[in-house]
């Protein structure tokens, strides 16, 4: 075989291998940074985030409008401080509310944004004041048992 053809094939082979690795890193793995730049950040404080993870979707009316970029623990308020990356093209009023929801019974958790009625919009760095924590199953069962017990006590 000609030397140049051989070189060409080996070159293509190596390029394809490195290309496959890059595809794995960018498209499959989480190497690519959270957004494409055209986004703004919002902050929301939650009492309990349940199983929310970074890069979880932020949805409004079921449409993905952004992603969770960071989750920290606020050691002064003892709450979770969640930073959201919202796509630049979506604007939300100042009095919007955020809640942590679950897709399906066992699905992943995401943040649901509900628009309010304020004429002014949220900007970069603003805080979403109304938040609703994730539903913790144990607390729910506890409340249910408690209310059942209270009902029983009333009837007597």
């Amino acid at each position, binding site marked *: 075989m000609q030397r140049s053809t051989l070189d060409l*094939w080996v070159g293509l082979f190596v390029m394809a291998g490195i290309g*496959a*690795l890059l595809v794995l890193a960018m498209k*499959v793995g*989480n190497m690519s940074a959270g957004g494409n730049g055209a986004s703004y950040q919002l902050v929301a404080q939650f009492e309990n985030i349940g199983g929310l993870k970074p890069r979880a979707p932020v949805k409004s009316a079921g449409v993905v409008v952004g992603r969770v970029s960071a989750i920290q623990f606020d050691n002064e308020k003892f709450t979770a401080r969640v930073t959201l990356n919202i796509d630049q093209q979506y604007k939300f009023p100042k009095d919007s509310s955020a809640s942590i929801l679950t897709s399906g019974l066992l699905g992943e958790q995401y943040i649901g944004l509900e628009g309010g009625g304020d004429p002014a919009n949220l900007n970069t760095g603003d805080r979403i004041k109304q938040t609703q924590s994730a539903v913790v199953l144990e607390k729910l069962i506890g409340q249910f048992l408690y209310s059942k017990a209270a009902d029983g006590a009333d009837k007597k």
Partner: protein
Amino acid sequence: MIHKGLSIRGIGARTIDSVLRLGYAARFIARTVMSSGTSLRRPRLVIRELYFTGVLSLIIILVSGLFVGMVLGFQGYHTLQTYGSESALGVLVALSLVRELGPVVSALLFASRAGSAMTAEIGLMKATEQLSAMEMMAVDPISRVVAPRFWAGVIAMPLLAAMFSAMGIFGGYLVGVVLIGVDEGSFWSQMQSAVDFRNDIMNGVIKSAVFGFAVTWISLFEGYDAPPTAEGVSGATTRTVVTSSLAILALDFLLTAFMFRGL
């Protein structure tokens, strides 16, 4: 050589033989690595071998990767839809390919496609006394023939495994999203949030490099050690495929136990 029956003497002879072979193999790989200076000075030798081990294995690797991914898509969908979590199909396909199936299956294919060819080539070179002729001409056959093949195998294997995984994920996408109709957004986004670059992808690359090392070592040694007869070469080729496959599976278990213990 002592007749190897089922006697105590036979067991002893077999044990001593295998320990001796293991020692030869270790010395062989040490000599190969030590005398890889020629491969560095003349990279063209390695490039030539990269063509034979890497480029010519490409078709079988890509086609198998595609089909493994497509089957994973079908089977994964079938199981996941029972729990109503079809959106996790991307995670299932990507993680199983990147962590396990990519490195392991491509190494098994590499052993049968390229490893057996290396053994047969070197065994035949030995049988036709080409290696002795090189020694007569003061050319070290290890540095001229063995070391370039060794490095080509070690370089080609991670690249082939990466291509296998990428192709498999494409196959899973074809079946899951295009054919069955799983939501494309959740397919990719759940995959991206679940697959970690360092923990999953890099560990897969390390695995495939270790497999490449093991497979090339076994096939080169079997070829170099083959009895210089037609029967000897054919036996060595068979042993290459069997031993490499067993070594890949055993190493995979060990590496997985170390890498993913905390996960």
